[in-house]
Structure formats: structure tokens, C-alpha cells
């Protein structure tokens, strides 16, 4: 596999920038902290955009590769790099964290320095997850992400049970981490007694491991907990209700588990994955339907979005499980979409929570009267999450449905059922929360989106529209990883 280095260690610099920013934020005077954080996030976004510009989608393999021996005796490297699959997650992540910092601007009342520092730390770790090409390094970042998240949930959560939710989340993820580590270790041990932890090396010895089935299931559990796949999703609705909406936007926006399946399960264990294709597709479609049905009876916007997210990520897994280039590209596209759409919706509920003090539909109703702009943007992003043509959700969804029909007609039909259910659960709850007569004082007195919030929503909406009308920009970059995929995954067409 080709490895292209570049003139500067851009990826390490990016992480270093974020870590320095986090340190400075923690040290800065309380009133300046958020400005430091904002500046760091802006610079990070600029750097990631430079990386995207510098990326050559004509080349195959990994680019911006950095390699340093880390633990030579075990053949473990500090190995970073991006390809067409992971590249676009960098700007998406940077944009997401920028938005989250902006959304938290006035919403954090205690320990705000620590809050913004932890956010930047979390961003650095996420960048690490997306760029590391050594399984040990990846695992390190993977587990490290729990630290900032635990504190973000328990310290600034908004529900009375936030500590329980935080503990539950961390315990779930730790439980998932165990099989993950075991799987990586088993994968690394070669028949001749040597170790391979680096990703390109593992790709080159595909199919030589004797415990592929066991490794497959361990990876599936490890990543499935985070995705989340049904029935390992129960942390998500709890978290949605207890955590801070801005934090949730990062958790729901970044579907790291699905990325893990995409990056490790399918390329490293192609034959096993193919023989358990029915399982992957089944888990995916179960999530799609289960999430959509459960979302129908939710009475809280945030729980609704949690179940909706379960349904959407299920669709991504269906796309992955088809092993066709349309399905894979649609899945990556959809993951990128949801860093914008799902997190945008969560941020809007955060704005609502900040104004009204609740996202429960019994204490809402008639929001459109006092907050027409918030109501309009919520509807727009909701429509985008349904995959209405014109928004970026449509090309992604069309590709996934198309590939689902190619793989299993039954699964394809089920995605169509979910399409109808998606409209039903979203619009029904939307109607009860945002429309109708306004009779709560908190709702009537609330102010509409302020300029800062408006700017964020306009930005998200514009991007959603642009990629809806011009999806090829995204697909071309994803397709540059196609040449790798063709070798490693026995694709259809």
C-alpha cells in the first residue's frame, strides 16, 4: 500500500495545536478562556482545510503519513495518515467543535475554563482516532476519549442523573474496549512469532490469521457499543436526557463506532465480514426500524433525536454491509452528513433548553410564535435528516437504499418503511413541540436565535444545501480510497 509523506508533520501539528490550545484555555483568565478556545478551533479548522486542499485524490493509499518507532520491541509505531475515507472527517470534526464552542458561548456557568479546555482535548483525541494507522495508537486515542467525555457529561450535564449517565457511558465503553484490545492483540500476532500493529502491514497479511471469526465478533462488539448497534444502545437515550446538549452534539455527530467498523472490521477481515454479511445487514436494519419505531413514542426532543440517531446510524451500517462501492460511499457520506445535521439538531435543542429550561414537549408548544427562526431551522434540518432531495441527506440515502436493494431486497424494502416512519416520528413530535397554541410563559417570553446562533445555523444549512446539489465534491474524495477498497473488500460493482 502506498504511503505518501509530506513536507511537514501536519497531522501531529494539528493535534499539538489543539493540545496547546487546551492548555492555554485552562491557564487563561476566566473571561478570556472561551476566546482562546474559539481561536484555537478556528485555527484548527483552517489547518484541516489546508490538509484537504493538499490532499491529492488521484493518489491511492495514505497521505500525510508520519511514522516514528514507538515501542520497537513490539513493532509498535507512532503512525499517522489519512486516506479518502478518513480525510473528510477532519474538517467535519473541526467544524463540529467550532460550532459546539460557539453554542456553549454563554451556556456554561461554572468552571468554564475547564469546559473549553476539555472540549479541545476531546477534539485532539478525535483527530487522533481518525488519523492513527497503528492499532495500539488507535486504541490509546479510543480509550482516551472517555476521559474528557466523562467529565463533560458529569460536570456540565443538565439532568439530575448525569453522574449515573456518565458512569453508565464510561462502563459501556470500557466493556466495549476490552474485546477491542484483545482483538487487536490477536490480529497482531503473526504465525512466525512477529508482531504487526500497523494498519498497512495488517492489510498485507489479510487472511493469514487463524482466529478471524473470533476477532470479527470482538471487533463488532467493541465498535458496536459505540456505534451504537441494537441492543447495545441503551446508554444513548439516557445520555441524551442527562448530558449537556453541546456535548451530545459531539457524541451524536461523530459516529466513531461506525467509523471503526468501516476502517478496521471490513478491510482487515474481508472474508469473515462477507460470510457474516447477513448479520451486519440484519443488525443495521434492526437499528433502523427499532430506532424509528421507538422514536415515535418519545415525549422529549432529545430522546427523540437519540432514537433517530440510532435509526440513522443503522442505515449507515446497512450501507457498509452491502460491500458495494455505492453502499460504502453512501455510508461515509451519511456519516459526514450527520456531523452537520444531527449535531445541528442537538444544538438547536440546546438553544431551546437554554431559553425555556426544558425540551419536554409538555412544556413546549407554540415555539413558532416567539422563535420563528429556531422553528424554521429545526424543520429544515429535520427534513434534511429525512433525506429530502436538495439536502445532502438525499444522495447519501439514495446510494445506501440502492445498494441495500442490490444486496437484500428485503432489507431494501425495510429501509423504505423506515423512510415513511422517519417522516412520521419527526413531524409528529415537531408539531407538538413547535407548533400549536403557545400557552407557557417561558415559551412566550423567549427570544429568537441571536446573531451568533443564527450564523451557525445558516452555515450548517448552507453546507447541507451545497452538498445536496453538488454531492460529487464529497464522493470524489471518498472514491479515491476506492482503489484500496477494491483490493481489500470483494466488492460487487
Amino acid at each position, binding site marked *: 500500500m502506498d504511503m505518501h509523506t509530506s513536507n511537514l508533520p501536519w497531522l501531529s501539528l494539528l493535534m499539538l495545536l489543539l493540545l496547546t490550545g487546551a492548555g492555554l484555555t485552562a491557564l487563561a483568565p476566566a473571561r478570556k478562556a472561551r476566546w482562546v478556545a474559539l481561536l484555537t478551533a478556528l485555527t484548527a479548522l483552517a489547518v484541516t482545510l489546508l490538509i484537504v486542499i493538499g490532499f491529492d485524490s488521484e493518489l491511492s493509499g495514505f497521505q500525510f503519513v508520519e511514522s516514528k518507532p514507538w515501542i520497537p520491541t513490539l513493532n509498535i509505531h507512532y503512525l499517522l495518515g489519512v486516506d479518502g475515507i478518513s480525510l473528510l472527517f477532519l474538517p467535519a470534526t473541526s467544524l463540529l467543535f467550532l460550532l459546539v464552542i460557539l453554542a456553549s458561548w454563554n451556556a456554561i456557568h461554572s468552571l468554564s475554563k475547564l469546559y473549553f479546555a476539555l472540549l479541545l482535548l476531546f477534539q485532539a483525541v478525535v483527530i487522533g482516532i481518525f488519523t492513527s494507522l497503528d492499532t495500539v495508537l488507535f486504541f490509546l486515542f479510543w480509550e482516551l476519549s472517555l476521559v474528557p467525555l466523562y467529565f463533560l457529561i458529569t460536570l456540565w450535564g443538565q439532568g439530575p442523573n448525569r453522574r*449515573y449517565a456518565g*458512569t*453508565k457511558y464510561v*462502563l459501556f465503553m470500557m466493556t466495549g474496549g476490552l474485546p477491542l484490545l484483545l482483538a487487536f492483540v490477536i490480529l497482531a500476532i503473526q504465525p512466525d512469532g512477529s508482531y504487526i500493529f500497523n494498519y498497512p502491514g495488517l492489510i498485507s497479511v489479510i487472511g493469514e490469521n487463524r482466529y478471524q471469526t473470533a476477532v470479527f465478533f470482538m471487533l463488532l462488539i467493541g465498535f458496536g457499543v459505540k456505534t451504537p448497534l*441494537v*441492543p*447495545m*444502545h*441503551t446508554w444513548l*437515550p439516557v445520555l441524551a436526557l442527562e448530558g449537556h446538549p453541546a456535548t451530545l452534539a459531539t457524541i451524536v455527530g461523530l459516529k466513531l463506532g461506525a467509523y471503526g467498523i468501516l476502517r478496521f472490521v471490513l478491510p482487515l477481515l474481508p472474508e469473515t465480514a462477507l460470510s457474516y454479511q447477513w448479520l451486519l445487514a440484519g443488525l443495521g436494519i434492526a437499528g433502523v426500524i*427499532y430506532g424509528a*419505531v*421507538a422514536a*415515535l*413514542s*418519545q415525549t422529549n426532543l432529545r430522546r427523540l433525536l437519540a432514537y433517530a440517531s440510532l435509526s440513522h446510524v443503522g442505515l449507515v451500517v446497512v450501507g457498509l454491509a452491502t460491500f458495494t*462501492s*455505492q453502499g460504502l460511499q453512501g455510508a461515509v457520506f451519511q456519516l459526514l452528513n450527520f456531523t452537520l445535521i444531527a449535531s445541528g439538531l442537538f444544538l438547536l435543542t440546546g438553544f431551546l433548553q437554554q431559553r425555556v429550561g426544558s425540551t419536554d414537549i409538555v412544556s413546549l408548544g*407554540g415555539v*413558532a*410564535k416567539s422563535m420563528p*427562526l429556531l422553528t424554521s431551522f429545526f424543520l429544515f434540518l429535520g*427534513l434534511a435528516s429525512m433525506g*429530502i*432531495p*436538495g439536502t445532502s441527506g438525499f*444522495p447519501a440515502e*439514495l*446510494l445506501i*437504499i*440502492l445498494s441495500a*436493494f*442490490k444486496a*437484500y*431486497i*428485503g*432489507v431494501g*424494502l*425495510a429501509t*423504505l*418503511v423506515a*423512510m*415513511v*416512519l422517519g*417522516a*412520521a*416520528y419527526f*413531524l409528529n413530535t415537531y*408539531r407538538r413541540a413547535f*407548533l*400549536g*397554541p*403557545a400557552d407557557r410563559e417561558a415559551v412566550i417570553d423567549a427570544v429568537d436565535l441571536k446573531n451568533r446562533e*443564527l450564523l451557525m445555523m445558516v452555515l450548517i444549512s448552507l453546507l447541507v444545501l451545497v452538498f445536496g*446539489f453538488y*454531492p*460529487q465534491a464529497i*464522493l470524489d474524495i471518498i*472514491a479515491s480510497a476506492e482503489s484500496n477498497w477494491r483490493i481489500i473488500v470483494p466488492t460487487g*460493482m
Partner: protein
Amino acid sequence: MVESLHPWIALLIPTLPLLAAAWIAVGYLFGWNRGETGERETAWVALGAISLSLLLLLVLDGLALSGNAPGQIIVGDWLTIGSIQIHLSFLFDRLVLVMATLVAFISLLVTRFSVNYLHREAGFQRFFLVLSLFNAAMLLIVTAGSAVFTFFGWELAGVSSYLLIGYAWHRNTATANATRAFVTNRIGDAGFVLALVFSLIWLGSVEWSEIPTVVNDKAIPTLEIGLIIGGFLLAALAKSAQLPFSSWVTRALEGPTPSSTIFYGALMIHAGVYLMLRMEPLLTMVPALMIMLLMIGLLTSLYAWLAGLVQSDIKTSLMFATLTQVGLMLVWIGLGWFDLALLHLVVHAIWRSWQFLSSPSYMQQVQQPAKPAPAWLRKHPRLYTAAMQRFWLDDLSDWLLVKPTRALAHEAQLFDEQVVDRLIGIPSHANMLSTLSRLEASKQGLFTVANEVGKGRGLFGFIFEWLAEAMQWLEDRLVLPSDGGALMKLVNYLGRHLEKIDHLLAQPRYLLLIIMATIMVVL
């Protein structure tokens, strides 16, 4: 010279109203067209856009009359992936030019009419925004060269009609009806997507002008053609409010009178008919579907005619009259008289828009009360009641779809909390002595930590707890009377829940669910 301008003209026709909508939205965001002072500008932008679209269409009409119809125009690529290529293209053949000119003309009339009708309404800008979106959507449905872009328009029309029906968003009936109409339409949209996907898989093309030739060249089996048309048919039936989807259209009357009604009366309801006209070359290959179309059209006409006889308000009776006519159009298509259907469509759309537009002043023009239902109908009380109740279509769909889905949703929620969470659940907090007061209490003997090994949650927790208990029991050398409490409890517990599950499974929705799941697995 003119040739090179074609892509621009084609692109501008549906885009102009879209740009108008965007302009109004931006103006509203920045606050320069809000309130009564902004009405003039808003109206001019909306009117100007649709007038220009009409003008451009008239130019194309002129070209067509002189024998230079542009035909298919490919503006660019929208999506290329693997062997699949979807163009951004337009098609201007005879059918399209007739339909598009009609659409633009009626849209212009309605927009002009609404300027006065909505004067000083609070949602003036919002209305014109949605109206412009709708105009763009209808123009796109008609002029798009590929099924994918027709679907763009199709959905945009659905969204804008949702917004128009829910125009009075503070009234619960309006928003409930809007939601109902959209979700019903979404079933049709699912059919549309199905047709798109099958066309892409089997034909490899979604260009309207290419589909017939591909079907002939590749000798596609009739079953596959039937499935493709079946998807489009479902979409057409939902959009044109034919049986069994008829009930949404009377709910759509919640929109502001009459500017939104006209869409259901004169434009959008004909979209389904247009789609079927578009399918002409394929439809003729599958006679079975044409017969089905004929039957559905006939039944809808009959249904709407009977229900229309007993209506007492003008909008509803006009709506049912429209349904009758649209049903008849489908009958013509079913009989293979495509030209007649098109002619009927054009005449009906113009006539009906005039009627709808004059309906608000109708009450002043006509002094006498509404005519009672005809005598023969009153002689058949059952039929009369059925007509009054609109043949219980709404209740039927409530009973068959909405209620079971709601119940299922409720149970899914319970299942999630009671079963999945407990099964996967984590150990409960190890906080038996979490507070100082408890520590104090335990010192004084007021609070005792249960003498068991530990408390577990979830299946694993339960297993471990039980295991630990069993060990302790062994260690006590069976001194204590063996009550086997944990196991008995488990058995009892399971028994109770199995009974519940059994009870639930006996209900039809679960039976259906199981059947659906089986079908999924088999396929």
C-alpha cells in the same frame, strides 16, 4: 446561437421561483422585508420570477411551434458513481411544453391573486416564500429530464404543501392535517424511490427520454417493468389522492383559502396524472397495470362523486368534484387514451382554478342555500351515511396503520426500558454506603447492608449474583433450609413475562410484524 442558450433557459425555468424563495428567506432573516412595508417587494419578487419563467416557456413554445423543440437538454452531472450516472437534465417535448406552460400560467394567476388576498396577513412573506417554492417544485416535476430530478420537485412540492396546509400553525387541526398529508404522501414517495432504485439497477438510467429505448434494447422482462411502473404508480396515486390515499386531500383544505386549495384543485393533484402520462411507453407494455389504473380511477370517481353529493361547503365539494375528474383522467389512461387524458387535464386545471379562485366570493354571488343531496340518495340511508362519512377511509387508515404503529411504538419504548436495558444493564451503583448519614445509620444498626454478596443488575449481574449466592449456600453446608429463592423468583418472573409476550404475540400487529420479518429474511 439559440442552441447554446438552451441549458440556461432550461435551468432558469424552475430556478427562478426558487431564487425568489431564497431571496424572500434571506430578506426575512435580515429583516428587510418584514411587516407590511415589505409586502410590495415580496410580491414583486415572487411575481417577477414566475412571470419570467412563463416568458421563457413561451419562447420555448414558440421554438417548438416552428419545429425546433429543444428536446433533451443535459446541463451537467449530478452524481457519478461506479456505473451509475445521474445527469442534471431537462426535457422539453410536446407533453412537457403543454404541462409546463399550464403550470406556469396557473402559478402566475394564483400568485397575483394572493397578493391581494393575503394583504396584511401576518404570514405574508412566509406564504410567498412557500408559494414560490411550490411554483419551482411544480415546474421542476414537469420539466426535469430525469426521474431523480422529478423526484426533487416531487418532494419539494410535498414539503411546500405541508407548509401551506400548516400555514395556520397555531391551530392544532391545521398542523395535524399537514402532518397527516405529508406522511401519507411519504408512502407514495417511498414508491417513487423504489422505482428510482429499480430503474437504476435494471435499466442503468433514469433519463425519461432514455428509459423507453433502454427497455426495448435490453429486452427487460415484463415483471421488472411492472415493478418499476408499480413504484411510480404508488407515487402517482398518493400525490393525486386516488384510492386508497384519497383522504389526505380533504384535510389539505386547511390551508389559506383559496390560494392553497388551488394547488390541490388545479396543480399538484395532476402531478400523478402527469407522471402516468410520462410513463406512456412503458405502461402500454404492461396491460395488467393499465387495467388496475382503470379500476382505481373508476372507484375513485365513484367514491368522490358520491361523497361530493352530500357536502355542504363549497371547498369540500369542489375538492370532491376534482377527485372525480382526476379519477376519470386515470380511466382514460387505463383505456390507453393518453391524449384525451392530457386534454382533460389541461381543460380541467384551467376551469378548476377559475372556480377555486372565485369560491370566496361565491357566497355573495349566490343567494340560495346549498342544494340538498338528491332524493334517490336519501332513499338509501346506508349509502347516504357512507357518503357522509366519506366511506370511513380516514378511520380505516387510522385503524389499520396509525393505531397499530402507535401501539408498537409504545411497546418498543417499554421493551427498551424493561427488557433491553435490564438485559444489557450495568451493575447498579456500588453505593450501599454512599452518604455519611447512611454510614452513621449503619454504625447505630439502623441501616444494614443486605447480607448478600452483592446486588447485580442485568442478566449478567443476575447470573453472577445467583452464582455467588449458590456458592455461599454450598459453603454453609446446606445448613440453611434450601429455598432456592433466586431460581424460583426467576422462574416466576419469566413465567409472568412470557405470559405477557404470549398475549402480545396474539395481537395482529405482532403477527404482521413476524410475517414481515419472515419475508425480509426469505428475500
